């Protein structure tokens, strides 16, 4: 059996793989794995292209910490898309499903409602990630493995808040739909 054709690997194998990939990222690129910084930089470049004068007076562009770049991490995000598509292609594990069973049970089968929720949820999540300077990858794996205080606090907050929100939205009965 070719392992690359399997639909699922053990979480221990996947976790260890991501851990070793972190060694590789630190050793070769001197950069932790993260996802959301390129989103911020892309948005900043688009805004800058649309409103060129903004660099003169907007606080974001005045801060020397914020220098938008298309670099290693930007290509990493493209790679995640390619790698996941490749894995899904090899195993045939792709789906046309838009509304998952849990959402359908709670909010109905409407596709526009699900997509609106996804859009707003994604936007709020990204604002949160940029306020905290990291996401589930940048803080949740790369930061915690460096024993960063900011990352451990962030992970504790996001797991508490996201679990509370999920129970608020779906309740205990929702557990039988995942």
């Amino acid at each position, binding site marked *: 059996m070719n392992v690359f054709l399997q639909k699922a690997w053990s979480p221990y194998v996947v976790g260890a793989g991501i851990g070793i990939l972190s*060694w590789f990222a630190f050793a070769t*690129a001197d950069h932790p794995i993260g996802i959301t910084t390129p989103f911020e930089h892309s948005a900043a470049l688009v805004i800058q292209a649309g409103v060129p004068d903004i660099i003169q007076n907007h606080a974001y562009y005045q801060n020397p910490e914020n220098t938008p770049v298309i670099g290693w991490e930007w290509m990493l995000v493209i790679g995640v898309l390619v790698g*996941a598509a490749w*894995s899904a292609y090899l195993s045939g594990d792709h789906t046309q499903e838009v509304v998952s069973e849990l959402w359908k049970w709670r909010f109905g089968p409407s596709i526009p409602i699900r997509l609106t929720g996804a859009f707003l949820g*994604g936007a709020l999540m990204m604002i949160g990630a940029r306020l905290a300077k990291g996401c589930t990858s940048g803080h*949740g794996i790369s930061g915690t493995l460096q024993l960063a205080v900011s990352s451990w606090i*962030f992970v504790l907050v996001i797991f508490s808040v996201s679990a509370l929100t999920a129970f608020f939205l779906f309740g205990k009965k929702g557990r039988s739909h995942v």
Partner: protein
Amino acid sequence: MFESPDRLVLGLATGIVFGFLLQKGRVAKYQVILGQLLLKDWTVLKIMLTAIGVGAIGVYALVALEMANLHIKPMLWGGVLLGGIFFGIGIAIFGYCPGTGVAACGEGRKDAMVGVAGMLAGAGIFVWMYPMWLPIIRDYGDWGKITLSEVIGIPGWVWILLVIMIAVGINLAMPHSCPTIQDKPEKTGFP
């Protein structure tokens, strides 16, 4: 604006492996993420804790050998707490985190594609409203780029051991989802 081509290729290669692993780990799926948030399916935490334990050993070893540097994010209380609250609410509604959301697009999930567009919009809102965010990020306490060992005087390797013990404990004690019968890979002509 652009980094050197070799760094771009290196980033792409690292990303491909990361995306491949996320998809094989089944975390690019709405029901697996929500299964974790509803404390039923512990796949997400098992992967994360295993990655943290394995990653910490290697990265701290590389630092000790002077082959790598730490990149600690600053403990800015306002940004981390408000950001964590926004992020936690957002992930429960969207059903994916940023990395798994991008990976879910690779699985063909349309809700993830729209959510990733929402992520880009959110990034735009963040940049546009930066003058409003900056005082929130900056003015509620800054502990700097600090590690657990520097706050509580326990050496790094003890923390790593502790993390590994928690990882092993959760891995042993908690259930995780297995692909259903229909999900099982079909037998193919490959040996």
